[in-house]
């Protein structure tokens, strides 16, 4: 009887030991997963820390009012001016041109693929479209400079060799696949019962797509547009190659201009002494870019919540 008891105890403690082991490995995995997650968060925190701390030093030399209101950006000249609006204007104009191309085109393609194309067409068209998103942006940049600009000059003879227009157009084409692909996913997620409801009312495919499917998928569409905006604002190589790099406060897409990103490339390639004010402009510009992108992302999140799928 007592021997029996002892072996029972032994069994139980074995199971306990097994449990403890399982508990340990569970903990270990949890710790590994946490570490993996922490790396990405810490990297972001580190980047923000560096941007902010270097920018603080920059703003000890330059007042924020000057930074925001000065109409010239000449940080490397003897007569230095630090008007970030010069770079912001270039960024916004080129992004605006890109989005004027990408949002309508991307949406139309998405409507076609989701509502009209048959299975075979979609099977071929979607991967090809996504391939377009895999082309390196430097290739797009030279495409803009060597092909699109000369073509545009045939229509607009005054267009200079470098222009926001040409870079923006090509940037738009680059963004089309992202918008088209995400928008198509959002529209395909609209339940078939909703389309049937519209068809049953005697609506055509096009009427259904515009009046039922698009409104039902609007939060997904908004998300894809926000992603497109983020890509446009952060795009570097196309602008560095095709838009010219001279800082130019302009709202005219027919002119060449530097953007925040192309300025950073330009300065980062030179050999500025560490800690000089010119060096710190990179971080101030980088922080501005981060804030612009952040603003669009927050607006996007807000839109998504506001117009979240109601089906």
């Amino acid at each position, binding site marked *: 009887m007592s021997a029996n008891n002892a072996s029972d105890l032994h069994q139980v403690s074995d199971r306990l030991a097994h449990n403890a082991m399982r508990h340990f490995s569970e903990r270990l995995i949890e710790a590994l997963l946490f570490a993996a997650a922490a790396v990405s968060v810490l990297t972001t925190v580190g980047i923000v820390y560096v941007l902010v701390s270097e920018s603080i030093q920059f703003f000890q030399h330059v007042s924020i009012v000057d930074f925001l209101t000065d109409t010239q950006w000449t940080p490397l000249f003897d007569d230095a001016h630090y008007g970030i609006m010069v770079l912001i204007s270039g960024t916004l104009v080129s992004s605006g041109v890109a989005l004027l191309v990408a949002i309508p085109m991307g949406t139309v393609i998405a409507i076609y693929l989701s509502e009209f194309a048959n299975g075979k067409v979609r099977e071929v068209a979607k991967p090809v479209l996504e391939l377009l998103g895999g082309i390196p942006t430097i290739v797009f940049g030279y495409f803009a400079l060597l092909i699109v600009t000369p073509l545009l000059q045939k229509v607009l003879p005054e267009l200079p060799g470098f222009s926001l227009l040409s870079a923006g157009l090509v940037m738009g084409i680059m963004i089309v696949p992202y918008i088209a692909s995400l928008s198509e996913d959002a529209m395909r997620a609209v339940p078939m019962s909703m389309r049937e409801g*519209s*068809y049953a009312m*005697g609506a055509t495919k096009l009427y259904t797509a515009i009046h*039922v499917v698009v409104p*039902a998928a609007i939060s997904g569409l908004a998300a894809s547009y926000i992603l497109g905006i983020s890509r446009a604002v952060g795009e570097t190589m196309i602008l560095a190659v095709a838009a010219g790099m001279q800082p130019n406060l302009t709202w005219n897409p027919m002119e060449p201009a530097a953007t925040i990103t192309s300025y950073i490339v330009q300065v980062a390639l030179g050999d500025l002494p560490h800690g000089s004010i010119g060096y710190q402009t990179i971080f101030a510009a980088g922080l501005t870019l981060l804030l612009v992108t952040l603003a669009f992302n927050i607006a996007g999140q807000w839109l998504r919540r506001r117009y979240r799928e109601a089906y």
Partner: protein
Amino acid sequence: MQIHDTPTLKAEARNLNFYYGEAKALKNINMPIYDKKVTALIGPSGCGKSTYLRSFNRMHDLYPGNRYEGEIRFFPDNTNLLSPEVDPIEVRMRVGMVFQKPNPFPKTIYENVAYGLRVRGENNKRVLDDKVEHALKGAAIWEEVKDRLQDLAPNLSGGQQQRLCIARALATDPELLLFDEPTSALDPIATGAIEELVHELKKRVTILIVTHNMQQAARVSDYTAYMYLGEMIEFGKTDEIFIKPQDKRTEDYITGRMG
């Protein structure tokens, strides 16, 4: 229930076959639909009653590989609804439908009801206001929503959504209204409201209703058709079908020995 009148025909299926690709889903169906009457389609799951219902507004045309054979004659003009020369959109302009799960559009209550009118090119505000109100009253939901016509329809309760969908179908004055298990997603109170509504609506419109619920068929319909494995087993006046079914299979189903 009116038993002694001779009702006029609104529609009639003649030798109707239907195929999903190779699979034959409806087998040689012949059946009258009487004007301003409620006809119920009953039968076990997969018997083809929804397939049959969806032939009346050509919903099968939306998916590739579907094929009809035979005719559905629509009166008084004797049009064959299934003819390839007849545009399915024309058919759907005359035949409304209410679905199993309420499917309001992500629009306001007002715009949901106005949808079919706008599809038909009606944009006159006064006409729309008028017809929207009339349709909402017809679907017995006007009192509940008249002060919030600009609210989003998906925020309504399930039963309200379904009555809104009925209002949406009514707004365009269909000649035939198809109901595909309209209460299967609703609680008993909402179900009661819909049944009452169906009873009220048959004064204005011919109704064809698919239901899984035998009591519902008995309560709301004038005629009942029992379908099994794609065939029309028995069709007749509802009280006759439920009291004295002619076919053994109908009797088994109604008495709960099958299905």
